[in-house]
């Protein structure tokens, strides 16, 4: 990381947004892990860290607010932008998105492990997943990897959406998803972000799961990255930071 990126990271880590993320995600994980003594360690870790509600209500808003914070403060700052080439701006921007998403994801993971140790029955036996008949730990690893990749895609998309209108639309969408997730039919759910990523759908085999999810992630990435690149071709500095 260069000097500018290090300063941006330091500033982000001192921000109120970052300080709120830990208790916020912690609260979500606490709600979903408390009183689940019937689960063993890996079952509960699996249930908590890949829970669609935690992804939608806790992970996504944390990523959204963090990316918007750095975009508004640094990538909408003409003093900085004028000194960089567009290629350097995009490189720094993507690097920071990657760093921030990874950081939040690690927070989610660490908090999940802590609460799982506290609230599971502390039986560390690895059991087989009842759908795919393979060890739960492998499913956990695959699901976490999918969520991580999806979070990065979401981070890149958020970076494109940094204006008030887009922020309001995204927030309302998140609220609608949270409110209706249980009653929405599958043909609508398929259009929701993270459909193939979270536990909203079940596949006939683990191979189908991996193939569908990979295709979903690749298509999403290409789509989002193309949209993202458009951002730097359009006018910038319309919505000023301060």
């Amino acid at each position, binding site marked *: 990381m260069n000097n500018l990126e290090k*300063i941006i990271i330091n*500033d982000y880590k001192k921000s109120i947004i970052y300080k709120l993320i830990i208790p916020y995600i912690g609260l979500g994980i606490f709600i979903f892990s408390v009183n689940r003594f019937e689960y063993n360690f890996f079952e509960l870790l699996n249930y908590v860290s890949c829970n669609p509600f935690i992804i939608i209500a806790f992970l996504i808003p944390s990523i959204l607010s963090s990316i918007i914070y750095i975009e508004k403060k640094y990538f909408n700052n003409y003093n900085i932008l*004028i000194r960089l080439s567009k290629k350097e701006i995009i490189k720094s921007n993507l690097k920071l998105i990657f760093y921030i998403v990874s950081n939040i994801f690690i927070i989610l993971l660490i908090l999940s492990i802590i609460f799982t140790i506290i609230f599971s029955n502390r039986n560390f036996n690895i059991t087989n997943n009842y759908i795919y008949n393979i060890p739960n730990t492998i499913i956990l690893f695959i699901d976490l990897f999918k969520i991580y990749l999806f979070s990065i895609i979401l981070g890149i998309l958020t970076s494109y959406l940094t204006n008030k209108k887009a922020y309001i639309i995204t927030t309302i969408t998140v609220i609608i998803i949270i409110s209706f997730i249980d009653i929405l039919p599958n043909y609508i759910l398929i259009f929701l972000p993270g459909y193939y990523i979270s536990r909203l759908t079940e596949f006939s085999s683990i191979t189908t799961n991996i193939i569908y999810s990979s295709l979903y992630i690749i298509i999403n990435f290409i789509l989002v990255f193309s949209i993202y690149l458009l951002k730097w071709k359009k006018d910038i500095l319309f919505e000023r930071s301060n």
Partner: protein
Amino acid sequence: MKIEINNLSKTLDNNIILDNINMSLESGNIYGFIGRNGSGKTMLLKVICGFVKPTSGTILINDENALANNYFNNEIRALIEKPNFINNLSGFDNLKLLASINNKIDDKTILTWLDKVDLLEEKDKLYSKYSLGMKQKLGIVQALMEDTKIILLDEPLNGIDENSVNIIRNILLEEKNKDKLIIIATHIKEDIEKLCNIIYHFDSGKVTIVDKKTN
């Protein structure tokens, strides 16, 4: 350095912000853009910087199409609208951060510039604690410190005390004599009269009058 603007227009949501602007700007001059708020002065500065794309027309900087490039011209520095710094860094650290991006100048040069605008004593103070005038002076320093050939200043003397105004006016005149191309957008006639030798009057996105002063 030479900036040539040909038939440049910018429309936003069906509103014409810049309407068929034509001008030729050369080094060794201070150009004044004068007009009421919303007349298009600031938008033109943003277009020259490369932050905003015009709807039509071209900008040539030293005969090179500035709009075709995938980079902001590294010979341009600007103070647009209001200073934009990081609140929890000191004035000096903010300038150091900006200088570190291109590594063109050292700490000594930054300190010299801070001294010139009478901010040396306040260099370690957090930017958030700066007064409006101090923020403005810091904004001017960041635009000037790297000795670039083109300097764009939007309302540069806003909120600055009279003593400092005179210091900055002298600095700008010195920079002009170093063959810089300086553009000042303002609605304060006194700044224009004391500094600029060519004045463009803006009204509703159009250049209505061009005044050339003979020194």
